């Protein structure tokens, strides 16, 4: 783009080719959004109607809107439009592909598809020719006036609400009749599966694209300034919005149960983030600690399949489950944490395997009878706190709530607890010491940090949180079985915090959500899900190793050698 350094003055006087092309492309796209895209009924989003931009056509429309920035030379405009055009092309291509695929061929697409394809290409070509300027969009801070506080609060709370709302829409998108949590053994796919997957993918890409455009225009920076001034308000708004989610479900529980699973997965990811993200200890068997908690919870739940026959109060179960898991963490960590990082990785992996093998064998024939072997401890009864039964539907404020909402709130509390622990710890003296150990253990020890003890603390705390999360999860999914605690689960958790951004809470949340939701919704990938997962890990490490939401320090650590030629010469 260096050849495009046209002086600002000339750009303003006569609109150049880039502006014209981009504008024309955007107009075509808007027009196409009002025309039917499918020649047959059945594709989600009412794609056969004209004048009704629903479903994927709404996303096309949304991504054409940044073209309004052509009217004024905003800073970062060219970059924002380039991003919008890239994403627009992806959404159009994807949607056309899925409409044609689900309709049995390209002959069955509607008339809106042609202007959309031409428009998307013009948009792309035009945005590449826009005059670029050196000016990068900066965040805007509001002036210190009496109206600043209410406006900022509104924006901050609105952002939290908006994020949750977008999440809820994505979650509520039809994923056809396949039960959640089922595994790779799916039957052949129906047309609906394909069409729904296509629309969901377009939705996710659009959200990412809008976020990208907002970032290029400096809107995210402004938002960060505002949320940074009211962090508690932001968190509270997010929590309230999340807690209000069950009221929007009209008594249905399907989305709630997925959300609850995401919640527990995210809680485990945040816990692992303490071990890996803060203290830099690579734990490849983290799911085993989760499993210790789950089995403990299951064995003392009073389930008929539990050999102990013990039924402890739930609050006590959580605490004890966490403690038991933490003790395992201490036992494993004490001898091994003096070792170098790679040895720790293999020892934790070994522990994960030992755990899985052990619970698989304690069935009374290959070993002592404790865990029912491969069948696991199942039929865990519903929780009851006093007279409140978690397994019953309730009505609150005149709104029907399915029983899943009880478990959803339970998971939300767990997540809030784990997040709070993480944030308090990371800002404490202990957290700073962990980061110091992660960055350079020798230097940390030289400044008087007791590295062994602190590493052990991180390891045991991570194990404790995982154990507590495991006891809760056992009651949510009603079973603890060895299949749920394999190496691939540990790898997925690790991938979640790496994808999201190591050492940050929003990163772990985002990573856990994406990694849980995508396979759940992208049924068309079918058996190729793990294959895509493997490729994705490689690509993330190659192109964005600091994750989607990077802490500033980590981003620098990963990209230092790219900007600093001296560092590269040394390395």
């Amino acid at each position, binding site marked *: 783009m260096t050849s495009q350094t046209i002086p600002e003055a000339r750009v303003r006087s006569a609109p150049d080719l880039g502006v014209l092309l981009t504008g024309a492309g955007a107009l075509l796209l808007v027009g196409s959004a009002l025309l039917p895209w499918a020649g047959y009924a059945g594709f989600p989003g009412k794609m056969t109607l004209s004048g009704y931009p629903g479903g994927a056509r709404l996303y096309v429309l949304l991504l054409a809107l940044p073209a309004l920035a052509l009217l004024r030379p905003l800073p970062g405009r060219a970059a924002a439009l380039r991003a919008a055009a890239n994403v627009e092309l992806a959404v159009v291509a994807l949607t056309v592909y899925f409409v044609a695929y689900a309709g049995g061929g390209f002959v069955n697409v509607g008339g809106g598809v042609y202007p959309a394809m031409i428009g998307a290409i013009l948009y792309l070509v035009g945005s590449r020719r826009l005059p670029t300027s050196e000016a990068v969009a900066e965040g805007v801070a509001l002036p210190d006036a009496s109206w600043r506080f209410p406006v900022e609060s509104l924006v901050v709370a609105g952002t939290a609400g908006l994020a949750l709302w977008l999440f809820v829409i994505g979650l509520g998108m039809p994923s056809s009749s396949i039960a959640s949590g089922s595994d790779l053994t799916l039957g052949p796919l129906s047309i609906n599966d394909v069409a729904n997957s296509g629309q969901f993918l377009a939705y996710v890409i659009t959200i990412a694209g809008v976020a990208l455009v907002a970032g290029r225009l400096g809107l995210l920076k402004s938002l960060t300034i505002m949320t940074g001034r009211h962090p508690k308000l932001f968190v509270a708004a997010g929590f309230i919005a999340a807690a209000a989610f069950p009221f929007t479900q009209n008594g249905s529980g399907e989305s709630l149960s997925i959300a609850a699973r995401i919640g527990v997965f995210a809680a485990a990811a945040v816990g692992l983030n303490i071990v*890996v993200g803060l203290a*830099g200890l*690579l734990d490849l068997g983290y799911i085993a600690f989760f499993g210790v908690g789950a089995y403990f919870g299951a064995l003392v739940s009073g389930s008929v399949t539990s050999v102990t026959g013990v039924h402890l109060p739930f609050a006590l179960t959580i605490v004890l489950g966490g403690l038991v898991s933490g003790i395992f963490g201490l036992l*494993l960590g004490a*001898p*091994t944490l*003096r*070792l*170098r*990082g*790679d*040895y720790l*990785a*293999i*020892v934790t*992996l*070994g*522990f994960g*395997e*030992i755990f899985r*093998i*052990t619970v*698989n*064998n304690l069935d009374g024939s*290959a*070993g*002592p009878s404790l865990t029912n072997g491969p069948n696991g401890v199942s039929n865990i009864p519903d929780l009851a706190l006093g007279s409140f039964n978690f397994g019953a539907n309730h009505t609150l404020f005149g709104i029907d709530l399915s029983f899943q909402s009880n478990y959803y709130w339970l998971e939300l509390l767990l997540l809030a607890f784990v997040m709070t622990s993480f944030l308090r710890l990371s800002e404490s003296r202990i957290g700073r010491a962990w980061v110091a150990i992660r960055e350079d253990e020798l230097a940390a020890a030289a400044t008087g940090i007791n590295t062994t003890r602190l590493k052990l603390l991180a390891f045991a705390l991570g194990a404790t949180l995982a154990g507590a999360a495991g006891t809760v999860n056992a009651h949510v999914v009603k079973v603890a079985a060895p299949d749920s605690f394999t*190496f*691939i689960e540990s*790898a997925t958790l*690790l*991938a979640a915090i*790496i994808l999201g951004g190591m050492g940050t809470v929003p990163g772990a949340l985002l990573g856990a959500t994406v990694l849980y939701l995508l396979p759940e919704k992208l049924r068309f990938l079918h*058996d*190729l899900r*793990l*294959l895509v*997962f*493997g*490729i*994705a*890990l*490689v690509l993330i*490490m*190659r192109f964005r*190793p600091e994750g989607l939401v990077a802490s500033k320090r980590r981003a620098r*650590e*990963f990209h230092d*050698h790219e900007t600093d030629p001296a560092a*590269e010469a040394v*390395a």
Partner: protein
Amino acid sequence: MDVFFQQLVNAIVLGATYGLVALGYTMVYGIVQLINFAHGEIYMLGGFGALTTYLALPSGTPAGISLPLMLVGGIAVSVTAAVIMERFAYRPLRSAPRLAPLITAIGVSVFLQELVRNFYPHARSARNFPQLVNPDYQIRLGSNVQISAPQLLTVTVALVGMVTLSTFVRRSRTGRAMQATAQDPDTARLMGIDTDRIIVTAFVLGAALAALAGVSSGLQFGQVDFHMGFITGVKAFTAAVLGGIGNISGAVLGGFILGLVEVMATQYAPDPFSGGAWKDAWSFVVLIIVLVFRPTGLLGERVAARA
């Protein structure tokens, strides 16, 4: 006593396989300090490469011709995969923090497994491997101690591979360059060693040995499976760590010790914990115990200081 000696034979055979695969881990680790998690999959690909070669040959080809060709085919597939993997997944990350390539390695491992599972014909469950070396042909070593022909082949192939590698590393120019790179990559580069080429060489040698192990395990058990690389890979890495990672003789020693532990624990562990169901658990228990008392492994010495 016969049972003990018979198990000793089995242990040596198993240990030979672990040792062969462990060599790949230890060479790569010694040079670039990377746990090449996908190395187990390279072993698996060796088995599938040999199977493909066999299926491509006209039926009725005598074993004396098809067996060497299968070994070559297996090695070719493994080496190709390893070179591509090094070039496109690991090399771009050479200056990144150490966590990054490890996660890439996990990704590559999952990818290769799924690639075979999804795209190799009928590979979703185990595929039969031709029984070219008759497993019923037993050689008596004592009154009740015997070794089957495929087992003998495994041990022979392993010993030949190990000796060749050790000679290569100690005597050849490239081998000495490998040692130099492992000791100090920066100085090695200053001495005119093309370290990129050395790293690729380490991957290639490791892959070739892993392919030998993959083919011989196919011959022994009569099947190959997309999943067979995971547990063998983890065990082989354990063997490398046991022996002291980065140390070539250590990997072989670690392999044999691990084989011994696994076989003997299966036979002699206290009652409820013996038998095949517990053998993997025993290997890891031994690993943890060894690391507690000898954190750098049995033969590893300077590795810990180089972190």
